[in-house]
Every structure is written in structure tokens, then in C-alpha cells.
């Protein structure tokens, strides 16, 4: 591949991800509004929020690590997007593979954790402690699912995983071939989004939004950017693993939005679990489904 082409891809992939991510945020808020019989925010609301937050006149920093944390939170996802193939663009997906992608997706959390840590606010620290606990909860089913898919495809290369699914049309989709893994993956994905009933680390009424408690202005803005990336990455990863990726942009985006709509719709119907209940739930049902699913695959 020509280097220029590659560079263009590397620039375009995060950009697309950001824009799609913003729309996903909007969709999420609209779904919430619809479920609560509200009108919901206007179309550009996610953008308004981000611009406003970055345009604040006074911003509170708790030190250099606080700043770097936000940079890492954004930068980690920007890097992760280049490992996530989209129709027509593979970026450097072949040089990392799915395991690298999963680990790269932890970098933003780590950055955020560091930044929050320096804020010296116990709410934030509790939030991070809970976020990491939640990660421990949902990553176990997630890696089971990833193992199953990668093993079935015989590769960790996402491009090839997508290609094998697209080879035989609908029948070769991961969700059709490995329905149990797909279900387990959906639950894990839901939890990884940190939405109700799994939003133990935000818990506004309990720990004052946890990690975000000391974040204002561009700090919060960075986290909003990160959130849109997160929604995009999660749903696209699921689509790549189970729904055959996308042949065209249309069906790719359709699948991504639809997949995201499922957990989001469920989310606003539930209150919050306690930490140990989240753990118990995650370690029981999706893990069980995932292991049975792997047994079928092997």
C-alpha cells in the first residue's frame, strides 16, 4: 500500500469514528428521551456540548498528570480506531490484531484513571476503583468471546475475521455461527459501555459522577470526545466480530447503530446494580454462555 494512502487512512479513520461517535451519542440521548416520552436534544447537541466545554474561559487543573490523563484518554482511542477496519479502510489492523486492539482500548481508561487520581478527590478515586472493578467484571466474558471468535477464524487479524464472515453471506456471520458467543458478547459490550444498569462508576447520586467529579471545561470535553469514540469502537468491534463487518458504508453504519441501540434501549429501563451484583451477574451468565459457546466452536 502506498504510504500516502495509508496516512490518509490513518487520518480518516479516527475522524470518521469521531463523527459517527457523535451521532451515536445523539442516538443514545434520543432513545433515552423517547423512552421517557421526551423530545430529546437537537441534532447537534453533542457537538454543542463539546464545543462549549472546550470554550470555557476558566478551567481547573489539578496538575500535569490531570492534563496528560485527558490527552491519553483521547489519544488512546484515536490510536485504537486505526486498528479497527471499516469498509474500504484497514489502517494498520493487520499489524496489531484484535488482542492488541483490546489492550489499546485499556489505555484511555488508564489515562483517565491517572488523571482522576491526581485530582485528589475521593469520589473520583472511588469511581476509578469501581470502573476498574467493572472492567474486571466485563472483560472476562469479553475475552472468552474474543477467544472464541479468533479461534473459530483461526486468526487474530480483524481483517481476516471480517473476510471469513463475509465469505458466505448471512450464514457465515459470527452471530449465526456462534449465537451463544454473540449473546455473551452483547452483554459484555453493554457492561463495557458503562450504561445502566452497569453504571456503577458514574453513580451521580452516590459518588458525584465518580471519575468526572473534578472535570470541567476541556477536561470534561475530552471525556465527551472519549465517550463518542467509546460508543463507536464498542459497537464497531461487535459488528466486526459477529455481524460480518460492513461491505458498504451503509450497511456498516446501519449495523453499528442497530447494535448500539440494543444496550442503550435496555439501559434506560433499569436502575443501577451494586458493584458486587454486577460482578456476580457478569461472571455468571455471559461467562457461562461464552464457555458453552466456545465448547461448540472447538
Amino acid at each position, binding site marked *: 500500500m502506498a504510504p500516502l494512502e495509508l496516512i490518509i487512512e490513518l487520518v480518516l479513520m479516527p475522524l470518521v469514528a469521531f463523527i459517527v461517535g457523535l451521532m451515536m451519542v445523539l442516538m443514545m440521548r434520543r432513545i433515552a428521551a423517547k423512552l421517557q416520552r421526551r423530545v430529546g436534544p437537537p441534532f447537534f447537541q453533542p457537538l454543542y456540548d463539546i464545543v462549549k466545554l472546550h470554550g470555557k474561559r476558566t478551567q481547573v487543573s489539578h*496538575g500535569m498528570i490531570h492534563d496528560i490523563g485527558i490527552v491519553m484518554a483521547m489519544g488512546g482511542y484515536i490510536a485504537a480506531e486505526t486498528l479497527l477496519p471499516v469498509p474500504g479502510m484497514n489502517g494498520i489492523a493487520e499489524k496489531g490484531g484484535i*488482542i492488541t486492539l483490546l489492550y*489499546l482500548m485499556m489505555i484511555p481508561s488508564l489515562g483517565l484513571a491517572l488523571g482522576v*487520581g491526581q485530582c485528589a478527590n*475521593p469520589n473520583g478515586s472511588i469511581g476509578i*476503583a469501581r470502573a476498574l472493578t467493572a472492567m474486571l467484571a466485563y472483560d472476562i466474558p469479553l475475552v472468552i468471546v474474543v*477467544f472464541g471468535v479468533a479461534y473459530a477464524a483461526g486468526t487474530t*487479524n480483524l481483517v481476516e475475521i471480517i473476510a471469513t464472515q463475509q465469505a458466505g453471506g448471512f450464514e457465515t456471520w459470527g452471530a449465526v455461527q456462534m449465537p451463544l458467543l454473540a449473546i455473551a458478547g452483547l452483554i459484555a459490550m453493554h457492561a463495557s459501555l458503562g450504561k445502566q444498569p452497569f453504571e456503577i462508576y458514574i453513580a451521580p447520586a452516590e459518588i458525584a459522577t465518580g471519575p468526572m467529579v473534578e472535570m470541567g471545561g476541556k477536561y470534561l470535553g475530552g471525556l465527551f470526545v472519549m465517550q463518542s469514540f467509546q460508543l463507536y469502537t464498542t459497537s464497531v468491534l461487535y459488528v466486526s466480530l459477529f455481524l460480518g463487518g460492513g461491505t458498504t458504508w451503509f450497511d456498516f453504519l446501519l449495523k453499528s447503530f442497530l447494535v448500539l441501540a440494543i444496550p442503550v434501549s435496555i439501559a434506560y429501563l433499569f436502575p443501577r446494580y451494586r458493584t458486587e451484583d454486577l460482578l456476580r451477574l457478569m461472571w455468571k451468565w455471559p461467562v457461562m454462555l461464552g464457555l458453552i459457546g466456545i465448547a461448540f466452536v472447538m
Partner: protein
Amino acid sequence: MTLTLLDELLLFSGVTVLVALFLGRRLPAGWMVTILYGIQLLSLLKMAPLGYGGDPIPSTLILEVMGQTLSWRFDALSWYFALITLGSALLSSWYACGEWEQRFRQAGGNVWLFHLAMALNVFSMLILLASGDLLSLFIGWELVSWAGFLLMAMAGGVATRAAMRYITYAMVGAMAIFGGIALVYVSAGSLQYDAILTAVSQMGTPHLWMLVILFSAGFGIKMGLMPFHLWQAPAYAETPGPGSAFLGAISSRMGLFAILLVLVKLFGIVNIESLKIPFTLIDARDLLAWIAVFTIIFPTFTAMKQNDARELLAWHGIGQGGYMLLGLVVADAMGAAGGLLHVFNHATYQAALFMAVTAVIHRTGTSDLNKLGGLVVRMPLSFMVLLVGIIGLAGLPPMNGFVSKWLVYRSLLNEGMPLLFVAAVIGTLGTILSVYKLIHNIFLGQLRVEHEHIKEAPWSMMIPMLILAAIIFITGLLPGIPLAWVASVQEAVGLSVPNYTLGGVESASGSLDMIWVIGVLFAGFGIGALVFYSAGKSKRVHQLDNYAGGHFLTADIRYQYSDNFYAGLMHLIGGWYRGSFLWLEKSVKSLVEFLSLGMQGIYRRANAEFYLLSTALFVIAWVVI
């Protein structure tokens, strides 16, 4: 008789011991010893062709004792481990010989003994690594054990108790190996590797089982494999700072070295795989893999509960050993490379972490995670080193720990071992949790009033730490450098070699190129920074200007969340910490106590003579009739 390069190295090492012994009470002793380690390292680097597939270098020293031939030689395997040993010794000693040493002396520590113990450790490790037959291996093994004991016990008090526990475990291990060696000797008629190789192919299953159990238990104890892991954390944690950096980096890897040599090279994974456990679906190799995995999980989650930084790190040291063994017993090209590479990577970040923690202790006087916090503004470089170290330990990109773990994961995927894979990932997740606790409770959060005026660690300590941090990053960026050495190690022990590149590994079923990954990661950070820093300026505020639900914070309020850090998690799993292994250890100990009491009773009874004599007569009668 000309000296070979190996002779030179061992000679320098011996000289180091002598210098530490006789000149160690002079003031610049630390520097002298450090320079000598440097010379040793140079001498080792002269053997660098070994790391790229060169022929083994023998020592001219060959002993004939009691009908046994003892010989020593260096091959790629020895060279690789020796490189790590000398590297960590050089940096730990460098770290020790400046201000740390003065403080240690003021606190009543024995600097002479410290340097001597370090030099002895290095010397004995080199002897072990150079062993050319099973008997010289055992001799080296014992030397390493006792040298380690010296270093662990020298701090006195709690350290000595921990060291006593260590030496008891180590003796159990040594005796298992001793027994194994005797069995091997009987069946092979010699303790030379060649003879053993031929003998192994003719061994019956029970015999092989016995040997595998004895050797893996014996070597495993040194590695802290389950269920023999209890000694390690307290012993390493209580060793004086640079000593624990050194021990944590390399000491217990001697067990891995021996496992590689004996179980992988001599016995062969294929033979081990042929040992089926009746009535189950698993064989001896799976058993080892599961032991490795439990060694990853349990100590890692024990680490999470520690409230002392050094204990926490030491527990992780045990857990990381599991990854190495796991990779090795999976034993395909990638897995073995991952396991071996992890030895190097672990040594770098573990040494860096112990050093950073020791720097904190040097400045604050405590490693209690509940009594620190916010130090990042006072010790930013130490923070950076610790950060680099924990990213390596947790196995996240862009540091080197990621590469080795990635290789291990890949091999588990290739071999189709889902449960092991998941278990290994659980270990990694647990590691992330507990290292965040480490960095948060020391460096992040609220700075305590009493720490407001502390300084960054002195440069004599800082430079080795920074060098280590650089190594961690560079070998993460360019894993091809150590992978070349690893590849020749794999060749030397008869394993297949992965197709490695400078940036990672090429494979038909998914490659890794760290140069690209790190490249885009930093590009991402760059873009993030651009967005962030162009967005209007911010102002640093005092840590007391903080959201507290409208409460006014003052300096006397401890506003730091550190104790029982993962409270929610512990709600669920807290009850799962049963201390079963401690219980097991205790019950073995009390069993021995009980038997001991009984035996003493036999000897203490007033009129035991008649009673025993008649028993003796009874024995005679029984035999005769």
C-alpha cells in the same frame, strides 16, 4: 592453558566477591563493586555471539570428584539469563552505592554485608547458569539458594523470619531435586546431559512421572509456583531496597532457567505431554500449565489486598512467573518466546518498580500505601519510572510487558486452550487493578502535609531507574532486539523459533508490529494533546480546592481514598480469600511440631529403657519366628 571468555567472566565475578569481602568496609566500596559488575557485563558482552546462535563457550575448569565429572560452559540460554542477572546487578548496585548506602548505614544497616551478599548472589548465579552437567547444576543451585538467604536475612527481624521460611522451602526444593538427581543418575549412569538425554528416551512412565514431579516441584519452589509460593513475597519485600530489586528481577527466574534446562531441554515437552493422568483428560503438561495459571491468578489477587508497596510488588513477582512458565509449557514457537521474553521484560520492570518504591521509602520513610499519596508533585521522575514500570507489569502497550504477554496469549489461542487463556487474562486484569492501587496510593491523590517539603530521589538512585525505564520502553518499541536472543535460546533448548521482526512477530494467523502500534498510539496522543492544549488555558489549583459536596477542606483533613481500595470487589470476593495455603503451611508445621513432641516424648520417658529393650526383643522374635 588459555582462559576462555567464560573463565574470564567467572574470574571477574570471583574478584568482585573478594573485593566486597576484603575491601567492602572502605567507603567507595559500593562504587568499586558497581564498576566490577560493569566489567563483568562487558566481559559477558564479549560473548555476545552466543545471543545470536554462536557455539557454546566452555570453561577450562573441569573437576573430577568422587567419580563425577563437573564441567561448566555457557550457551545461548546461560548467556541470556546471565545478561539479565548482570544487568540487574549492575543497576541495583549502582542504585545502592550513593545516598541510599549512606542512609542505610546511618540506620544501622551493614553495607559491607549487603555488597558481599549481592556479589555472592551474582557469582553463584553465574556458576549456576554455567553448569555443564546436572551435578554442577545442583551445586550452583544450592549456592544460589544460600546466597539468596544471606541477602534476605541480613536485614534482621522480620526479614530473618521471612528468610528462614524461604530457606525451609528452598531446602524442600533442593531435596526434591537431589532425589531426582539420584534417580536420574541411577537410570542414566552419569549426570552428563548427553547421557541423560539418551536415558530419558528409554524411561518408563512411572519413572518419568516421578522425575517430572520431583524436578518441577524442586525448581518450582524457587519460582514460587503454587502451592509453594508463600515464602517469596515476604522474603523479597523485606530485603533491603536494591537487594529486593535484584532478587525480584532475577532470583526466582533461576527456577525457570533450571526448568528450561531439565524439563524442556533434557526431558522434552513431548515426553512430558505423553504422561497422561489417569481418569482425566489432562496430561503432565496441562498440569504444569494449570499450576502456572493458578500461580498467575492467586498471587496477583493476593497482591491486590496488600497495603505495603513492596509486598504488593513481590506478590506480583510470583504471579508474573506464572506467565513465563505458561508460555514455556505451551511450548510452541510463540509461547516459548513469550515466556522467555517475559523473563527479560519482567526483570526490567520489576527492578524499576522496586527501585521506585525504594526511592519513595528513602524520602518518606514508609511504604505503607495508606500513609502516602500525592507524591507526583514532589517526585515526578520516580512517578514516571513507576508509571512505565506498572504499564509494563500490567502488560499494556506501549511497554515491553505487553509484547511477551501478547505472545503467550497468541500461543494459547493457536493451541486452542480457552480456559488457560481466560485465566491468564484474569491475571492481567487483576494486575491492572492492583498496580493502579499502587500508583494511586503513592503518587496520586492528596499530598500529606508532612510530605510537602520532600525532594525527588537523588541522582545516584534516579539514573539507574531512568535507564531501566528507557529499556522498558525501547524493548517495548523494538521487541526484536531481545527476541533475537530469545530465538537463539529457543534453538539451544530445542524449541521452534517464531518468525520475529524488529517490531514484533510475523505470523500467518495474526502479526504484531509494535513500531506501528506505538507509532499510532503516540500520534493519537499528539492529536489529543493538540486538541486539549489548544482549548484555552487552565489554572492549577491547590489540592484543597476540591469538590466536597460544599464542605470546606482544610489541610488536617485526610481527603484520600486508599484503604480497602476495591471495596466493591471485596464485597464479593473478599470472602474467597480463605488463606487456605497459609492454613496448609501452618498445618504441616504443626504436624511436624506434634510429631516432634511425640519423638521427644520417646526420649524423655523415665523408664523407657526396659520398655524399648523389650520392644527390641520383640522385633527380634518377630523376625526370627
